[in-house]
């Protein structure tokens, strides 16, 4: 790929040969290309065409005038957001929530995959795997309903705590608990699912490497450090880069299902604020402006992480 890129940039004379290469490739892989067509159409229809709609971030969008006809207002909505009383708070909450989610959730999936890999009993392994990724298939609304029940004053957690003589409190009304609840339930929801990709990478490690390591006298621990981890390192790095790209975006659904005004100081994130303001107040230009800002930050973070990783580990997205 890098070679191809270099060809385009440096040798315009080779254009025709590049074209030939593509043609040849197409001939060989025509079914692969054919299979890719639906996805390409999907992305063009649902991701690229709607993209022109982001211009309403710079317009006072009115449905009557349409996207192109609405008057331009420049950076008004961005300024509105920056000057909003809740700008700093929502940005901070978003950053912290997703940073902590990454900090706890990301290694958890890797560790689970490594642990599963060490299990020799197939049946047990499969059982554990199934149990850990089941939560992924439960509807978010149901999960949040369970969380609300568990954390209420007479809920499961408080009943257990009461056994230790701790005064029951509704945990979801405590701003200091919100992140813990959000992140720990998030880890529980996604740990199994997220570990699948690492398990796949693990199965791709050449077994002869382990044999060689055993011959060299490496124990299980040494094998883990010197064979397994380096084997899945590229996958880990790629996943990390992708996750960093999403650092500034916390989905609004789970937040909205779990928060209430009492915890807004830690739970109100950009997307939930935009939801209240944009969708309920039908302020579309404002929501789009904030969404665009989020994407821009995400994009920058992704690029930076990618570059950084390229420099130190030679693994990168492109």
């Amino acid at each position: 790929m890098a070679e191809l890129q270099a060809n385009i940039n440096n040798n315009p004379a080779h254009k025709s040969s590049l074209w030939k290469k593509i043609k040849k490739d197409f001939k060989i892989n025509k079914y692969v290309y054919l299979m890719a067509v639906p996805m390409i159409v999907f992305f063009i229809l649902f991701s690229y065409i709607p993209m022109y709609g982001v211009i309403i971030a710079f317009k006072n969008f009115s449905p009557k005038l349409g996207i192109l006809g609405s008057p331009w207002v420049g950076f008004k909505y961005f300024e509105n957001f920056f000057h909003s009383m809740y700008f700093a708070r929502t940005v901070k909450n978003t950053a912290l929530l997703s940073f902590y989610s990454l900090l706890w959730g990301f290694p958890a999936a890797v560790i689970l995959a490594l642990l599963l890999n060490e299990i020799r009993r197939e049946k047990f392994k499969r059982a554990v795997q199934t149990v850990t990724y089941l939560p992924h298939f439960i509807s978010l609304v149901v999960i949040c309903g369970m969380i609300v029940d568990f954390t209420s004053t007479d809920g499961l957690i408080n009943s257990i705590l009461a056994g230790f003589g701790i005064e029951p409190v509704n945990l979801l009304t405590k701003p200091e608990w919100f992140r813990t609840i959000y992140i720990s339930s998030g880890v529980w929801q996604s740990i199994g699912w997220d570990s699948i990709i690492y398990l796949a990478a693990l199965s791709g490690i050449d077994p002869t490497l382990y044999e060689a390591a055993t011959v060299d006298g490496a124990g299980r621990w040494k094998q883990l450090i010197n064979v397994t981890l380096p084997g899945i390192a590229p996958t880990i790095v790629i996943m990390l880069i992708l996750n960093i790209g999403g650092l500034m975006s916390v989905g609004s659904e789970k937040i909205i299902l779990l928060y209430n005004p009492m915890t807004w100081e830690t739970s109100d994130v950009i997307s939930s604020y935009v939801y209240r303001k944009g969708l309920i107040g039908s302020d579309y230009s404002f929501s789009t402006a904030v969404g665009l800002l989020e994407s821009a930050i995400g994009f920058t973070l992704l690029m930076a992480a990618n570059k950084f990783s390229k420099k130190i580990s030679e693994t990168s997205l492109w």
Partner: protein
Amino acid sequence: MKSKRLVTLLLASLLSIMTLTGCNKTKTTEAPKDTDINTNEKITVKYWVPFTPNQYIKSLNESLMYQELEKKTNVHVVFDHPAEGQETEQFNLLVNSKDLPDVIQTYAGEYKGGVDKAIKDGVYLRLNELIDKYAPNFKKLLQEDPELARQVTTDEGNIYAFPVIGEDKNEPAWWGPVIRKDWLNDLGLKEPESIDDWYNVLKQFKEKKNAQAPLMLGKKGIDSYGTLVSAFNIGPSFYKNGNTVKYGPIEPEFKDYLATMNKWYNEGLIDKDFATRDKKSREAVITSGKTGAFITEYALVDQYSAAIKGTDAKAEFAPTVQPALKNGDKVHYRVVNNRNGGYEAVITSSCKNPERLVKWFDYAYGKEGYMLFNYGIEGTSYTMVDGKPKFTDIMTKNPDGLDFWTVCNKYKLEVGPYLRDYKAVPDFTKFDKDAMDKWTKAEADYVLPPVNMTAEESDNYSAIMGDIDTYRDEMVLKFITGKEPLSKFDSYVAQLKKMRIDEAIKTYQAALERYNNRKIK
């Protein structure tokens, strides 16, 4: 993080819909042709309206009443119901898409920029001329009742909707406090009338009846009809005193309300989990006998009474008057059914036969329509006994063991655009009658009439109120639960002023004055 953010997703789909449909501008409808109205060809209209399904009727498409209406008018209606709890969002997306239904009911007034703007934007139709021509029954009602005419006319003189209209001009209140009568009797207490009475009663419920949550408070700490907050001589949000608009949550009396709630909360008289309760969880507490008092609409209490018998056969709910600060004080705020009773149906610019549709709506305000909408189908849901309609057993003693409110919408309409007889229910239970009596004792002179804002005003208003609502909701809960000391109340008010609450009040004031000066024919 993996799942797409809701907002983006919705916006993306909205935008793609617009793109696909080519964003064609809506044309203003042509003048109605007289020929259209006389031919009685079958037409089909799409009708968007929120609806709460139950085991007996899943959607209004199953309503036998509307099927009967179709036989009479040859108008086939296809109902589309938004997901419960997402009505506002779905309405906003709906009016911004070009795929408008012919009729939008109930959320029509939420149009961003106001109804006049919706008409100017070519989304809703102005109905004045159509009503003159094709809606004699509705027109007669407007002529007979100037207050009604004022409430269905905008500041710019547009008549825009068919609302539910109470046949009785002073329909009673339907929202208020309910208390465990059997506990009061056991403890030898009389029904509480003042805030101090309430304190005493709740305290005893807590101590002697072991009530886990003596009082169920609304999720936001203030209920929308201000049942408790109005005891302090203010309204829960914007209200008027004489002709002056005020905002309850910045008045000094609001501090007293918060102090009272805070005291009750600290002493365990208020449900500890009130801020996180949704409707189901709230109902679970009520019907499991853990609470002594709550605030509700009377129609729900029958269900609660039936449900609580399972845990406590002696349990009995009774309505009580809205509390006043001191015995004998007057209360000035309560739920009011405006003459324009809401559930307004507007006709959109997508409608191809507005004349036929206006005629169809008008039917509901005439004599036959009155019987159909209020009582249903003669011989099926009611029979005439001594010249008076009487509901049949299907409605009152349903063979499936369902109560009236569950089967109601299959044969008649509970709420919607028609001339409503609020007494069109089998027999009010003693509870219902008591509730109406007691809750209507509160006066309603602080309640604002349904005013309109101009597009500019409402833009500015929503920009201001967006942040104010966030701040107020947060602070009210913190004050009540003691997270913030009440000594901070002044800085809370100062902050609201800084957030330009005065401007919002002024906007309301101007809108109220325009309302009072509306020219009606």
